[in-house]
């Protein structure tokens, strides 16, 4: 077995699959997940149809349904993923089986990787189970296949990040309860804390520059932003992350305006309770290129990037750092890599 294959398929993966799928908990979790996603889909569809009895378009139904489904799926995975991974290493310690793994030829990184792979496989299984429900949006139209694929990519990477955060806390804190609490705190900070930052410290609109503002770069850490951008064809359904001191966005009369990533201005009227998006392009700012999967971020650290690209890059960096930290913290006797290499060199000599 070569290194690549053994990295992906080590004995821990097979053992975890067996243990996980032999309990009644897994089928129950899958059933509840599907019922929740399908239930929400049905509820959204019903309410959309009933509120748009006169003049509602099927394409709108599809888009609204899709938007709600991706957001709800992400929130569900925020609750599920830490529960799958936060006990991965700490439960081995509590069960006192971790030492038995340390004395085998499995490397600490393989232990972590095996635990992560098996947990994430379950998440992917849940996502696959939801595909038939998501495919319903195509009945109404308004959503392209590539939008769905990108939404799933964003969701998988976000779930992976939540999983790696859970593994890192599980390795560091040693107790499952503490690791679970910390993982949920980390998960909610990632999803909603970063969005909260955009509300508290938004980017200020400066009328002197010709470049459209974008929400602070850190807000793109939350998968919610690219999910919403993607589901709404490149703009958010509400103003977010931008403070307007110049009066450019102030329309008065209960109308609030925001800026889409492409530099376009759009306004929502809140006077009748239900926000309605009215989009206008340009608005005095330089518009950037528009792609089929969304519109590029107009300014800031990720200028010219698609929102999903910024999100995935930042999350993969978090994954890499958390994995390396976990691999360092896990061994019973910790040794820095360069010290370990020196020892091997001495022995070879």
């Amino acid at each position, binding site marked *: 077995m070569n290194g690549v294959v053994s990295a992906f398929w080590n004995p821990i993966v097979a053992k975890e699959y067996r243990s996980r799928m032999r309990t009644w908990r897994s089928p129950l979790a899958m059933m509840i997940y599907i019922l929740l996603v399908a239930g929400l889909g049905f509820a959204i569809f019903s309410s959309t149809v009933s509120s748009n009895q006169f003049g509602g378009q099927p394409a709108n139904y599809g888009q609204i349904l899709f938007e709600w489904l991706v957001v709800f799926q992400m929130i569900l995975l925020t609750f599920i993923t830490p529960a799958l991974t936060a006990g991965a290493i700490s439960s081995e310690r509590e069960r*006192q089986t971790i030492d*038995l793994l340390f*004395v085998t*030829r499995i490397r600490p990184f393989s232990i972590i990787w095996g635990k992560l792979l098996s947990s994430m496989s379950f998440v992917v299984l849940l996502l696959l189970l939801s595909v038939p429900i998501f495919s319903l949006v195509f009945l109404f139209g308004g959503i392209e296949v590539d939008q769905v694929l990108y939404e799933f990519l964003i969701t998988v990477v976000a779930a992976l990040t939540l999983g790696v955060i859970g593994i890192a806390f599980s390795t560091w804190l040693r107790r499952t309860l503490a690791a679970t609490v910390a993982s949920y705190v980390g998960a909610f900070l990632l999803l909603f804390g970063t969005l909260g930052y955009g509300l508290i410290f938004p980017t200020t609109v400066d009328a002197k520059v010709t470049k459209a503002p974008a929400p602070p770069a850190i807000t793109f850490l939350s998968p919610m932003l690219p999910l919403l951008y993607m589901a709404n064809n490149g703009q958010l359904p509400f103003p977010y992350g931008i403070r307007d001191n110049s009066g450019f966005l102030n329309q008065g009369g209960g109308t609030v305006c925001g800026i889409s990533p492409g530099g376009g201005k759009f306004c929502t009227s809140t006077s009748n309770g239900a926000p309605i998006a009215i989009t206008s392009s340009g608005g005095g700012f330089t518009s950037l290129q528009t792609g089929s999967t969304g519109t590029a971020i107009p300014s800031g650290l990720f200028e010219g990037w698609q929102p999903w690209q910024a999100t995935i890059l930042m999350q993969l960096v978090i994954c890499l750092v958390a994995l390396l930290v976990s691999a360092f913290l896990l061994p019973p006797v910790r040794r820095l890599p360069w010290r370990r290499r020196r020892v091997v060199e001495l022995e070879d000599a």
Partner: protein
Amino acid sequence: MISAEDLSKVYGQRTALDHVSFEVPEGEIFGFVGPNGAGKTTTLRILAALLEPTSGHASIDGTDVAQNPARVHTRIGYMPDFFGVYDQLTVAEYLDFYAACYRQPKQRRTKIVGELLELIGLTDRRGQLVDTLSRGLKQRLCLARALVHDPVVLLLDEPASGLDPRARVEMREILKELRGMGKTIIISSHILPELTELCTMIGIIDHGRMRATGSVQDVIRGLSAGRRLRINVVGAREPAIAILEPLESVRHVEIANGTIEADYEGDDSTAADILQALTAGGIKVAAFSQVDGGLEEAFMRATSEDV
């Protein structure tokens, strides 16, 4: 084969191991004896490269444990003092999992699992879930787990603890079989007599210090050097104590349950001299006997001295 040199382990203010040294040649069975908390598990974890000593060195089969733990892990089979088992795995799957962790090829694993199940007498339970086994069977399974990669050294931490007498005998028989296979074994226990039949060498540890180490006979002889007399006298006991205490061979005198008990060093002739001294001093001796404390009591004495 196994060497511990000046091993110390300090946790904050507490010294768990205090300059422990011993050697176990190839093919020997080393009984590591001491009360709970004496430092047995700490020593075994250092030998298994699961713990870094504060000072000192350990090596197994010529490999320094701290410098090349990966190579040491291929040479040792480690059985901790608890049995870590997984839910939802059968006995055969459990052994197959650990054999895979030791990178044994698939075809070989099937053969290994079959042989080990036969060795521990669990062939007919290969399809049973591990967490439904009794404690004794789990212990045997954990011993088998330590053997999946055919190690040359076995580090067994209290393999018989918590077992009923029958399971203890069965475990002892398996260990004898392993001894016959030429494995070098360290077995820890807090019960000395349990090991004397099985082991060729013994080390006694207490409060982190090695009190005695060597062949079984030498250690037992050393422990039994101190003996105890139980003396009943007619009338007051104080005059008898006044005669006993100045005697050179008498180490300690006390009154226990109305009887004088005197620890002395020497043989039967020394005991006769003590009796003669009492009668010569005018003491009416009603009963004079040697306390048969045996190995267990000698071990208790050896491990209860203040450090």
